[in-house]
Protein backbone atom coordinates (compact mmCIF):
# COMPACT_ATOMS: atom_id res chain seq x y z
CA UNK A 1 0.00 0.00 0.00
CA UNK A 2 1.10 3.55 -0.57
CA UNK A 3 4.84 3.77 -0.48
CA UNK A 4 5.77 0.56 -2.20
CA UNK A 5 4.91 -0.69 -5.62
CA UNK A 6 2.02 -3.08 -5.79
CA UNK A 7 3.83 -6.34 -6.35
CA UNK A 8 6.15 -5.70 -3.44
CA UNK A 9 4.20 -5.73 -0.20
CA UNK A 10 6.39 -5.21 2.83
CA UNK A 11 6.51 -7.80 5.58
CA UNK A 12 4.89 -5.61 8.28
CA UNK A 13 2.02 -4.78 5.94
CA UNK A 14 1.54 -8.44 5.30
CA UNK A 15 1.62 -9.31 8.99
CA UNK A 16 -0.80 -6.57 9.98
CA UNK A 17 -3.23 -7.61 7.27
CA UNK A 18 -2.87 -11.25 8.28
CA UNK A 19 -3.64 -10.41 11.91
CA UNK A 20 -6.66 -8.36 10.97
CA UNK A 21 -8.05 -10.95 8.61
CA UNK A 22 -7.55 -13.88 10.96
CA UNK A 23 -9.11 -11.98 13.85
CA UNK A 24 -12.01 -11.05 11.61
CA UNK A 25 -12.35 -14.66 10.49
CA UNK A 26 -12.43 -16.10 14.01
CA UNK A 27 -14.88 -13.52 15.22
CA UNK A 28 -17.10 -13.91 12.20
CA UNK A 29 -17.09 -17.59 13.02
CA UNK A 30 -18.34 -16.94 16.55
CA UNK A 31 -20.83 -14.32 15.43
CA UNK A 32 -21.95 -16.52 12.55
CA UNK A 33 -22.44 -19.39 14.97
CA UNK A 34 -24.69 -17.25 17.16
CA UNK A 35 -26.52 -15.81 14.17
CA UNK A 36 -27.02 -19.20 12.55
CA UNK A 37 -28.52 -20.79 15.62
CA UNK A 38 -30.29 -17.75 16.97
CA UNK A 39 -31.89 -15.97 14.08
CA UNK A 40 -34.55 -18.66 13.57
CA UNK A 41 -35.92 -18.12 17.08
CA UNK A 42 -35.88 -14.37 16.87
CA UNK A 43 -39.21 -12.70 16.36
CA UNK A 44 -41.17 -9.77 17.64
CA UNK A 45 -43.01 -12.18 19.87
CA UNK A 46 -39.73 -13.40 21.36
CA UNK A 47 -38.94 -9.85 22.42
CA UNK A 48 -42.35 -9.06 23.85
CA UNK A 49 -43.49 -12.13 25.76
CA UNK A 50 -42.55 -13.61 29.09
CA UNK A 51 -40.46 -16.78 29.26
CA UNK A 52 -42.33 -20.03 29.78
CA UNK A 53 -41.24 -23.51 30.78
CA UNK A 54 -37.99 -22.35 32.43
CA UNK A 55 -37.13 -20.31 29.34
CA UNK A 56 -37.32 -23.09 26.77
CA UNK A 57 -40.42 -21.47 25.35
CA UNK A 58 -41.73 -17.96 25.28
CA UNK A 59 -39.74 -14.79 25.05
CA UNK A 60 -37.44 -12.56 27.04
CA UNK A 61 -39.36 -9.31 27.55
CA UNK A 62 -38.90 -9.01 31.34
CA UNK A 63 -35.28 -10.08 31.03
CA UNK A 64 -34.59 -7.41 28.45
CA UNK A 65 -36.13 -4.75 30.69
CA UNK A 66 -34.19 -5.95 33.74
CA UNK A 67 -30.94 -5.93 31.77
CA UNK A 68 -31.47 -2.35 30.65
CA UNK A 69 -32.35 -1.24 34.18
CA UNK A 70 -29.30 -2.94 35.69
CA UNK A 71 -27.09 -1.30 33.08
CA UNK A 72 -28.69 2.09 33.71
CA UNK A 73 -28.09 1.86 37.47
CA UNK A 74 -24.53 0.72 36.87
CA UNK A 75 -23.69 3.60 34.53
CA UNK A 76 -25.52 6.23 36.57
CA UNK A 77 -23.30 5.40 39.54
CA UNK A 78 -20.02 4.46 37.90
CA UNK A 79 -19.76 7.21 35.28
CA UNK A 80 -19.60 10.25 37.57
CA UNK A 81 -17.50 8.35 40.08
CA UNK A 82 -14.98 7.22 37.51
CA UNK A 83 -14.71 10.45 35.56
CA UNK A 84 -14.25 12.30 38.85
CA UNK A 85 -11.54 9.95 40.02
CA UNK A 86 -9.87 10.01 36.62
CA UNK A 87 -9.80 13.81 36.65
CA UNK A 88 -8.26 13.81 40.07
CA UNK A 89 -5.64 11.31 38.96
CA UNK A 90 -4.83 12.92 35.64
CA UNK A 91 -5.20 16.62 36.39
CA UNK A 92 -4.64 17.12 40.09
CA UNK A 93 -2.02 14.58 41.02
CA UNK A 94 1.36 14.10 39.43
CA UNK A 95 2.19 10.74 37.96
CA UNK A 96 4.81 10.06 40.59
CA UNK A 97 2.76 11.13 43.58
CA UNK A 98 2.28 8.48 46.19
CA UNK A 99 -1.47 9.01 46.34
CA UNK A 100 -1.89 8.65 42.59
CA UNK A 101 0.25 5.55 42.46
CA UNK A 102 -1.65 4.00 45.35
CA UNK A 103 -5.04 4.61 43.77
CA UNK A 104 -3.83 3.44 40.38
CA UNK A 105 -2.31 0.29 41.76
CA UNK A 106 -5.38 -0.58 43.81
CA UNK A 107 -7.49 -0.11 40.70
CA UNK A 108 -5.27 -2.46 38.72
CA UNK A 109 -5.69 -5.04 41.45
CA UNK A 110 -9.42 -4.43 41.54
CA UNK A 111 -9.52 -4.98 37.77
CA UNK A 112 -8.28 -8.51 38.32
CA UNK A 113 -10.66 -9.52 41.07
CA UNK A 114 -12.78 -12.36 39.70
CA UNK A 115 -16.32 -11.30 38.97
CA UNK A 116 -17.69 -14.00 41.23
CA UNK A 117 -15.95 -12.35 44.17
CA UNK A 118 -17.68 -9.10 43.23
CA UNK A 119 -20.90 -11.09 43.23
CA UNK A 120 -20.31 -12.46 46.72
CA UNK A 121 -19.25 -9.02 47.93
CA UNK A 122 -22.32 -7.41 46.39
CA UNK A 123 -24.50 -10.03 48.02
CA UNK A 124 -22.95 -9.50 51.44
CA UNK A 125 -22.76 -5.71 51.24
CA UNK A 126 -25.59 -4.37 49.07
CA UNK A 127 -28.13 -7.16 49.40
CA UNK A 128 -27.72 -7.99 53.07
CA UNK A 129 -25.81 -5.19 54.82
CA UNK A 130 -27.64 -2.33 53.11
CA UNK A 131 -30.83 -4.34 52.95
CA UNK A 132 -31.40 -4.02 49.24
CA UNK A 133 -32.09 -7.72 48.91
CA UNK A 134 -31.96 -9.42 45.53
CA UNK A 135 -32.69 -6.43 43.38
CA UNK A 136 -31.82 -4.63 40.21
CA UNK A 137 -30.31 -1.92 42.40
CA UNK A 138 -27.94 -4.37 44.13
CA UNK A 139 -26.97 -5.82 40.78
CA UNK A 140 -26.36 -2.43 39.20
CA UNK A 141 -24.27 -1.23 42.14
CA UNK A 142 -22.20 -4.41 42.13
CA UNK A 143 -21.54 -4.00 38.43
CA UNK A 144 -20.64 -0.37 39.02
CA UNK A 145 -17.90 -1.48 41.43
CA UNK A 146 -16.72 -3.96 38.85
CA UNK A 147 -16.42 -1.62 35.88
CA UNK A 148 -14.79 1.21 37.87
CA UNK A 149 -11.20 0.21 37.06
CA UNK A 150 -11.91 0.00 33.33
CA UNK A 151 -13.72 3.32 33.24
CA UNK A 152 -11.20 5.14 35.40
CA UNK A 153 -8.11 3.87 33.62
CA UNK A 154 -9.42 4.64 30.15
CA UNK A 155 -10.76 8.03 31.19
CA UNK A 156 -7.41 8.84 32.79
CA UNK A 157 -5.64 7.89 29.57
CA UNK A 158 -8.08 10.14 27.72
CA UNK A 159 -7.23 13.10 29.92
CA UNK A 160 -3.51 12.48 29.73
CA UNK A 161 -3.72 12.47 25.96
CA UNK A 162 -5.07 16.04 25.87
CA UNK A 163 -2.19 18.32 24.81
CA UNK A 164 -0.63 20.31 27.66
CA UNK A 165 -0.84 23.45 25.53
CA UNK A 166 -4.58 23.58 26.10
CA UNK A 167 -4.09 23.61 29.84
CA UNK A 168 -1.33 26.21 29.67
CA UNK A 169 -3.33 28.31 27.26
CA UNK A 170 -6.36 28.21 29.50
CA UNK A 171 -4.32 28.97 32.59
CA UNK A 172 -2.62 31.89 30.85
CA UNK A 173 -6.06 33.35 30.16
CA UNK A 174 -6.87 33.20 33.83
CA UNK A 175 -9.48 30.48 33.44
CA UNK A 176 -10.27 28.50 36.53
CA UNK A 177 -9.46 24.80 36.51
CA UNK A 178 -13.14 24.03 36.86
CA UNK A 179 -13.87 25.88 33.63
CA UNK A 180 -10.87 24.42 31.87
CA UNK A 181 -12.04 20.99 32.85
CA UNK A 182 -15.66 21.36 31.82
CA UNK A 183 -15.27 23.34 28.67
CA UNK A 184 -11.95 22.19 27.33
CA UNK A 185 -10.51 19.00 28.78
CA UNK A 186 -13.68 16.95 29.06
CA UNK A 187 -14.60 17.43 25.39
CA UNK A 188 -11.02 16.88 24.29
CA UNK A 189 -10.78 13.65 26.31
CA UNK A 190 -13.88 12.20 24.65
CA UNK A 191 -12.09 9.44 22.70
CA UNK A 192 -10.68 7.93 25.88
CA UNK A 193 -14.00 8.26 27.68
CA UNK A 194 -15.84 6.55 24.84
CA UNK A 195 -13.41 3.63 24.82
CA UNK A 196 -13.85 3.23 28.55
CA UNK A 197 -17.59 3.43 28.17
CA UNK A 198 -17.68 0.81 25.42
CA UNK A 199 -15.46 -1.55 27.39
CA UNK A 200 -17.36 -0.90 30.60
CA UNK A 201 -20.75 -1.46 29.03
CA UNK A 202 -19.42 -4.56 27.33
CA UNK A 203 -18.16 -5.98 30.57
CA UNK A 204 -21.30 -5.05 32.49
CA UNK A 205 -23.73 -6.38 29.93
CA UNK A 206 -21.81 -9.62 29.58
CA UNK A 207 -21.48 -10.26 33.28
CA UNK A 208 -22.95 -13.40 34.78
CA UNK A 209 -21.23 -14.42 37.97
CA UNK A 210 -21.51 -11.05 39.70
CA UNK A 211 -25.25 -10.86 39.07
CA UNK A 212 -26.44 -14.32 40.13
CA UNK A 213 -25.99 -13.40 43.78
CA UNK A 214 -27.17 -9.80 43.53
CA UNK A 215 -29.82 -9.05 40.94
CA UNK A 216 -31.02 -12.60 41.06
CA UNK A 217 -32.81 -15.14 38.96
CA UNK A 218 -36.44 -14.04 38.92
CA UNK A 219 -37.71 -13.75 35.35
CA UNK A 220 -40.85 -11.78 36.15
CA UNK A 221 -41.31 -8.26 34.78
CA UNK A 222 -39.66 -5.93 37.34
CA UNK A 223 -42.01 -3.44 38.97
CA UNK A 224 -39.34 -1.31 40.61
CA UNK A 225 -35.59 -1.11 41.03
CA UNK A 226 -36.00 -3.07 44.23
CA UNK A 227 -37.41 -6.09 42.43
CA UNK A 228 -35.18 -8.97 41.54
CA UNK A 229 -34.54 -9.21 37.81
CA UNK A 230 -32.72 -11.74 35.68
CA UNK A 231 -30.21 -10.30 33.24
CA UNK A 232 -29.80 -11.57 29.70
CA UNK A 233 -26.39 -13.03 30.43
CA UNK A 234 -27.74 -15.03 33.37
CA UNK A 235 -30.62 -16.17 31.21
CA UNK A 236 -28.16 -17.36 28.58
CA UNK A 237 -26.07 -19.10 31.20
CA UNK A 238 -29.05 -20.79 32.77
CA UNK A 239 -30.50 -21.91 29.45
CA UNK A 240 -27.24 -23.29 28.14
CA UNK A 241 -25.88 -24.85 31.34
CA UNK A 242 -28.85 -25.66 33.52
CA UNK A 243 -31.88 -26.27 31.33
CA UNK A 244 -31.85 -29.20 28.93
CA UNK A 245 -33.19 -28.11 25.57
CA UNK A 246 -32.61 -24.43 26.24
CA UNK A 247 -29.91 -24.04 23.59
CA UNK A 248 -32.11 -22.56 20.87
CA UNK A 249 -33.43 -19.81 23.09
CA UNK A 250 -29.96 -19.33 24.56
CA UNK A 251 -28.62 -18.56 21.10
CA UNK A 252 -31.52 -16.25 20.36
CA UNK A 253 -30.94 -14.44 23.67
CA UNK A 254 -27.24 -14.12 22.86
CA UNK A 255 -28.18 -12.58 19.54
CA UNK A 256 -30.50 -10.12 21.27
CA UNK A 257 -27.71 -9.30 23.71
CA UNK A 258 -25.39 -8.48 20.83
CA UNK A 259 -27.99 -6.29 19.15
CA UNK A 260 -28.64 -4.56 22.44
CA UNK A 261 -24.91 -4.05 22.84
CA UNK A 262 -24.67 -2.53 19.37
CA UNK A 263 -27.51 -0.16 20.20
CA UNK A 264 -26.13 0.85 23.60
CA UNK A 265 -22.61 1.28 22.24
CA UNK A 266 -23.90 3.28 19.32
CA UNK A 267 -25.92 5.46 21.62
CA UNK A 268 -23.06 5.96 24.08
CA UNK A 269 -20.68 6.90 21.29
CA UNK A 270 -23.23 9.15 19.69
CA UNK A 271 -24.08 10.95 22.91
CA UNK A 272 -20.45 11.36 23.85
CA UNK A 273 -19.40 12.64 20.47
CA UNK A 274 -22.33 14.88 19.75
CA UNK A 275 -22.88 16.17 23.21
CA UNK A 276 -19.27 16.73 24.17
CA UNK A 277 -17.72 17.33 20.77
CA UNK A 278 -20.42 19.84 19.86
CA UNK A 279 -18.96 22.12 22.46
CA UNK A 280 -15.66 21.98 20.65
CA UNK A 281 -16.97 22.80 17.23
CA UNK A 282 -19.52 25.49 17.98
Amino acid at each position, binding site marked *: MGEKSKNQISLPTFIVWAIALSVTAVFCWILGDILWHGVGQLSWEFLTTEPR*NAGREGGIAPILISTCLILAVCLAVSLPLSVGTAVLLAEFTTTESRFGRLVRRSLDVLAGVPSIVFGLFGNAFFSIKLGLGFSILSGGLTLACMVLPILIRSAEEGFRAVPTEYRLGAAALGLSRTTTLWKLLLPAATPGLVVGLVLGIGRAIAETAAL*IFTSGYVDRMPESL*LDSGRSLSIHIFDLS*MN*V*AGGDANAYASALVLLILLLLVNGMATWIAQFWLARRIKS
Partner: protein
Amino acid sequence: MAIALTIGLGIQACNQSSPIDNQTSDRFQGRLVLTGSSTVAPLAAEIGKRFESEHPDVRVDVQTGGSSRGIADARNGVADIGMVSRSLKEEEADLQSFAIASDGIGMIVHQENPVNSLSNQAIIDIYTGKINNWQQVGGKNAPITVVNKAEGRSTLELFLDYFKLENSQVKSSVVIGDNQQGIKTVEGNPNAIGYVSIGTAEFSINDSIPIKLLPLNGIAATSENVQNETFPLSRPLNLVTKTQPQGLDKAFIEFAQSPQVHDIVQQQEFVPISK
Protein backbone atom coordinates in the same frame (compact mmCIF):
# COMPACT_ATOMS: atom_id res chain seq x y z
CA MET B 1 -24.68 11.08 46.59
CA ALA B 2 -25.74 8.00 44.72
CA ILE B 3 -24.79 5.87 47.67
CA ALA B 4 -26.82 8.00 50.04
CA LEU B 5 -29.80 7.64 47.75
CA THR B 6 -29.21 3.95 47.62
CA ILE B 7 -29.16 3.60 51.35
CA GLY B 8 -32.38 5.57 51.57
CA LEU B 9 -34.02 3.27 49.09
CA GLY B 10 -32.60 0.31 50.91
CA ILE B 11 -34.32 1.20 54.13
CA GLN B 12 -37.50 1.60 52.21
CA ALA B 13 -36.91 -1.80 50.65
CA CYS B 14 -36.61 -3.41 54.05
CA ASN B 15 -39.98 -2.12 55.00
CA GLN B 16 -41.53 -3.19 51.76
CA SER B 17 -40.22 -6.67 51.51
CA SER B 18 -41.02 -7.82 55.00
CA PRO B 19 -43.52 -10.53 54.23
CA ILE B 20 -47.01 -9.97 55.42
CA ASP B 21 -47.77 -13.66 55.38
CA ASN B 22 -48.47 -16.01 58.27
CA GLN B 23 -52.10 -15.17 57.93
CA THR B 24 -54.25 -18.19 58.20
CA SER B 25 -56.94 -16.78 55.95
CA ASP B 26 -57.50 -18.21 52.49
CA ARG B 27 -56.26 -15.13 50.69
CA PHE B 28 -52.51 -15.18 50.86
CA GLN B 29 -50.44 -12.17 50.12
CA GLY B 30 -46.80 -11.21 50.38
CA ARG B 31 -43.48 -12.26 48.98
CA LEU B 32 -42.01 -15.71 49.26
CA VAL B 33 -38.25 -15.97 48.76
CA LEU B 34 -36.70 -19.30 47.75
CA THR B 35 -32.95 -19.70 47.35
CA GLY B 36 -30.64 -22.62 46.75
CA SER B 37 -29.84 -25.40 44.32
CA SER B 38 -29.58 -24.43 40.68
CA THR B 39 -30.97 -27.86 39.80
CA VAL B 40 -34.20 -27.18 41.65
CA ALA B 41 -34.46 -23.50 40.70
CA PRO B 42 -36.08 -23.82 37.24
CA LEU B 43 -38.62 -26.27 38.67
CA ALA B 44 -39.39 -24.08 41.67
CA ALA B 45 -39.69 -21.02 39.45
CA GLU B 46 -42.27 -22.73 37.25
CA ILE B 47 -44.19 -24.00 40.27
CA GLY B 48 -44.00 -20.48 41.65
CA LYS B 49 -45.54 -19.05 38.50
CA ARG B 50 -48.49 -21.39 38.73
CA PHE B 51 -48.83 -20.62 42.44
CA GLU B 52 -48.84 -16.90 41.64
CA SER B 53 -51.60 -17.35 39.10
CA GLU B 54 -53.73 -19.02 41.76
CA HIS B 55 -52.88 -16.45 44.43
CA PRO B 56 -52.57 -13.12 42.61
CA ASP B 57 -51.32 -11.21 45.66
CA VAL B 58 -48.37 -13.50 46.18
CA ARG B 59 -44.93 -13.04 44.63
CA VAL B 60 -42.64 -16.05 44.54
CA ASP B 61 -38.99 -15.00 44.05
CA VAL B 62 -36.67 -17.88 43.19
CA GLN B 63 -32.91 -17.30 43.49
CA THR B 64 -30.14 -19.77 42.78
CA GLY B 65 -26.74 -20.26 44.33
CA GLY B 66 -26.41 -23.91 45.22
CA SER B 67 -27.72 -26.34 47.82
CA SER B 68 -25.44 -25.11 50.60
CA ARG B 69 -26.74 -21.63 50.01
CA GLY B 70 -30.29 -22.91 50.32
CA ILE B 71 -29.42 -24.47 53.66
CA ALA B 72 -27.64 -21.37 54.91
CA ASP B 73 -30.34 -18.94 53.76
CA ALA B 74 -33.15 -21.02 55.22
CA ARG B 75 -31.24 -21.19 58.51
CA ASN B 76 -30.48 -17.48 58.88
CA GLY B 77 -33.83 -16.35 57.53
CA VAL B 78 -32.61 -14.68 54.33
CA ALA B 79 -34.93 -17.02 52.47
CA ASP B 80 -38.32 -18.34 53.52
CA ILE B 81 -37.64 -21.67 51.87
CA GLY B 82 -34.35 -23.24 50.84
CA MET B 83 -33.92 -25.55 47.85
CA VAL B 84 -31.61 -28.53 48.25
CA SER B 85 -30.92 -31.14 45.59
CA ARG B 86 -30.05 -33.97 48.01
CA SER B 87 -31.14 -35.51 51.30
CA LEU B 88 -30.29 -33.51 54.38
CA LYS B 89 -27.10 -34.46 56.18
CA GLU B 90 -26.92 -35.33 59.84
CA GLU B 91 -25.68 -31.88 60.85
CA GLU B 92 -28.63 -30.35 59.02
CA ALA B 93 -31.23 -32.22 61.06
CA ASP B 94 -32.43 -28.94 62.59
CA LEU B 95 -34.19 -28.12 59.30
CA GLN B 96 -37.48 -29.46 57.98
CA SER B 97 -37.30 -30.98 54.51
CA PHE B 98 -40.04 -31.69 51.98
CA ALA B 99 -39.32 -33.68 48.83
CA ILE B 100 -41.03 -32.31 45.74
CA ALA B 101 -39.44 -34.53 43.09
CA SER B 102 -36.71 -37.06 42.61
CA ASP B 103 -33.92 -37.38 40.15
CA GLY B 104 -31.79 -40.33 39.07
CA ILE B 105 -28.14 -40.21 38.17
CA GLY B 106 -26.98 -42.24 35.18
CA MET B 107 -23.68 -42.95 33.47
CA ILE B 108 -23.44 -41.52 29.96
CA VAL B 109 -21.08 -42.22 27.06
CA HIS B 110 -20.99 -41.10 23.45
CA GLN B 111 -23.46 -42.81 21.12
CA GLU B 112 -20.65 -44.17 18.92
CA ASN B 113 -19.06 -45.92 21.87
CA PRO B 114 -19.55 -49.70 21.34
CA VAL B 115 -19.62 -50.32 25.09
CA ASN B 116 -23.23 -50.88 26.19
CA SER B 117 -22.83 -51.73 29.82
CA LEU B 118 -20.22 -51.53 32.55
CA SER B 119 -20.06 -53.42 35.80
CA ASN B 120 -19.84 -51.45 39.01
CA GLN B 121 -16.25 -52.66 39.44
CA ALA B 122 -15.38 -51.51 35.92
CA ILE B 123 -16.78 -48.05 36.66
CA ILE B 124 -14.78 -47.91 39.89
CA ASP B 125 -11.64 -48.96 38.03
CA ILE B 126 -12.22 -46.39 35.32
CA TYR B 127 -12.76 -43.61 37.83
CA THR B 128 -9.73 -44.60 39.90
CA GLY B 129 -7.54 -44.84 36.82
CA LYS B 130 -6.91 -48.61 36.94
CA ILE B 131 -8.60 -48.87 33.57
CA ASN B 132 -7.64 -46.13 31.19
CA ASN B 133 -8.39 -47.56 27.76
CA TRP B 134 -11.75 -48.54 26.36
CA GLN B 135 -10.15 -51.74 24.99
CA GLN B 136 -9.95 -53.09 28.53
CA VAL B 137 -13.75 -53.04 28.84
CA GLY B 138 -14.55 -54.22 25.32
CA GLY B 139 -14.40 -50.98 23.39
CA LYS B 140 -12.14 -49.36 20.83
CA ASN B 141 -8.47 -48.79 21.42
CA ALA B 142 -8.76 -45.26 22.79
CA PRO B 143 -7.88 -43.54 26.06
CA ILE B 144 -10.81 -42.93 28.39
CA THR B 145 -11.73 -39.34 29.19
CA VAL B 146 -13.13 -39.44 32.70
CA VAL B 147 -15.66 -36.68 33.38
CA ASN B 148 -16.15 -35.96 37.05
CA LYS B 149 -18.23 -33.39 38.91
CA ALA B 150 -16.78 -30.59 40.96
CA GLU B 151 -16.36 -30.93 44.69
CA GLY B 152 -19.44 -30.16 46.70
CA ARG B 153 -22.02 -31.04 44.02
CA SER B 154 -24.62 -33.35 45.40
CA THR B 155 -24.44 -35.53 42.28
CA LEU B 156 -20.78 -36.13 43.04
CA GLU B 157 -21.47 -36.96 46.67
CA LEU B 158 -24.14 -39.43 45.65
CA PHE B 159 -21.93 -40.99 43.02
CA LEU B 160 -18.98 -41.39 45.40
CA ASP B 161 -21.24 -42.70 48.09
CA TYR B 162 -22.75 -45.34 45.84
CA PHE B 163 -19.39 -46.58 44.57
CA LYS B 164 -17.73 -46.22 48.00
CA LEU B 165 -15.07 -43.93 46.62
CA GLU B 166 -13.21 -40.94 48.03
CA ASN B 167 -12.93 -37.95 45.71
CA SER B 168 -9.17 -37.95 46.15
CA GLN B 169 -9.03 -41.44 44.58
CA VAL B 170 -10.73 -40.28 41.41
CA LYS B 171 -8.39 -39.67 38.48
CA SER B 172 -10.48 -37.39 36.33
CA SER B 173 -9.53 -35.80 33.03
CA VAL B 174 -12.32 -33.23 33.01
CA VAL B 175 -14.15 -31.71 35.95
CA ILE B 176 -17.49 -30.11 35.22
CA GLY B 177 -20.05 -28.01 37.03
CA ASP B 178 -23.50 -28.38 35.61
CA ASN B 179 -25.31 -31.24 33.88
CA GLN B 180 -25.39 -29.51 30.51
CA GLN B 181 -21.64 -29.03 30.58
CA GLY B 182 -21.28 -32.76 31.18
CA ILE B 183 -23.55 -33.60 28.29
CA LYS B 184 -21.75 -31.20 25.94
CA THR B 185 -18.39 -32.58 27.00
CA VAL B 186 -19.43 -36.16 26.27
CA GLU B 187 -21.16 -35.06 23.07
CA GLY B 188 -17.92 -33.52 21.81
CA ASN B 189 -15.66 -36.38 22.86
CA PRO B 190 -16.39 -39.96 21.66
CA ASN B 191 -14.16 -41.44 24.35
CA ALA B 192 -15.64 -39.70 27.37
CA ILE B 193 -17.63 -41.16 30.22
CA GLY B 194 -19.59 -39.13 32.73
CA TYR B 195 -22.61 -39.14 34.97
CA VAL B 196 -25.53 -36.72 34.85
CA SER B 197 -29.11 -36.34 35.88
CA ILE B 198 -31.19 -38.98 34.05
CA GLY B 199 -33.99 -36.59 33.13
CA THR B 200 -31.56 -34.18 31.49
CA ALA B 201 -29.87 -37.03 29.62
CA GLU B 202 -33.20 -38.41 28.38
CA PHE B 203 -34.24 -34.99 27.16
CA SER B 204 -30.95 -34.57 25.30
CA ILE B 205 -31.22 -38.03 23.73
CA ASN B 206 -34.72 -37.16 22.51
CA ASP B 207 -33.23 -33.97 21.15
CA SER B 208 -30.96 -36.27 19.06
CA ILE B 209 -27.78 -35.38 20.89
CA PRO B 210 -25.36 -38.31 20.35
CA ILE B 211 -25.06 -39.68 23.87
CA LYS B 212 -26.45 -42.79 25.55
CA LEU B 213 -27.26 -43.83 29.09
CA LEU B 214 -25.68 -47.00 30.49
CA PRO B 215 -27.63 -49.31 32.80
CA LEU B 216 -26.43 -49.49 36.38
CA ASN B 217 -26.29 -52.84 38.11
CA GLY B 218 -28.27 -54.21 35.17
CA ILE B 219 -31.12 -51.78 35.71
CA ALA B 220 -31.85 -49.44 32.81
CA ALA B 221 -31.39 -45.77 33.61
CA THR B 222 -34.88 -44.47 32.89
CA SER B 223 -37.28 -42.12 34.62
CA GLU B 224 -39.69 -45.02 35.13
CA ASN B 225 -37.14 -46.97 37.09
CA VAL B 226 -36.40 -43.90 39.19
CA GLN B 227 -40.08 -43.43 39.87
CA ASN B 228 -40.66 -47.05 40.90
CA GLU B 229 -37.52 -46.79 43.02
CA THR B 230 -35.74 -49.74 41.39
CA PHE B 231 -32.93 -47.59 40.03
CA PRO B 232 -30.23 -47.60 42.70
CA LEU B 233 -28.71 -44.13 42.23
CA SER B 234 -31.23 -41.37 42.88
CA ARG B 235 -31.75 -38.32 45.03
CA PRO B 236 -34.70 -36.31 46.29
CA LEU B 237 -35.13 -32.63 45.44
CA ASN B 238 -36.08 -30.95 48.67
CA LEU B 239 -37.59 -27.75 49.92
CA VAL B 240 -36.32 -26.95 53.42
CA THR B 241 -37.52 -24.60 56.12
CA LYS B 242 -36.14 -23.62 59.48
CA THR B 243 -39.26 -24.39 61.45
CA GLN B 244 -42.46 -26.26 60.81
CA PRO B 245 -43.91 -24.23 57.91
CA GLN B 246 -47.03 -22.19 58.44
CA GLY B 247 -49.28 -19.94 56.41
CA LEU B 248 -47.91 -19.03 53.02
CA ASP B 249 -44.84 -21.27 53.32
CA LYS B 250 -46.99 -24.22 54.16
CA ALA B 251 -49.43 -23.51 51.36
CA PHE B 252 -46.62 -23.29 48.83
CA ILE B 253 -44.88 -26.46 49.99
CA GLU B 254 -48.13 -28.39 49.94
CA PHE B 255 -48.83 -27.02 46.49
CA ALA B 256 -45.37 -28.06 45.28
CA GLN B 257 -45.91 -31.61 46.60
CA SER B 258 -49.41 -31.95 45.17
CA PRO B 259 -50.30 -33.75 41.93
CA GLN B 260 -51.32 -30.37 40.51
CA VAL B 261 -47.70 -29.74 39.62
CA HIS B 262 -46.70 -33.19 38.42
CA ASP B 263 -46.89 -32.02 34.82
CA ILE B 264 -44.42 -29.23 35.65
CA VAL B 265 -42.10 -31.69 37.35
CA GLN B 266 -42.12 -33.90 34.27
CA GLN B 267 -41.71 -30.94 31.98
CA GLN B 268 -38.54 -29.99 33.87
CA GLU B 269 -37.14 -33.53 33.37
CA PHE B 270 -37.63 -34.71 36.93
CA VAL B 271 -39.60 -37.56 38.41
CA PRO B 272 -42.73 -36.75 40.43
CA ILE B 273 -42.91 -38.32 43.85
CA SER B 274 -45.76 -40.75 44.13
CA LYS B 275 -47.04 -40.67 47.65
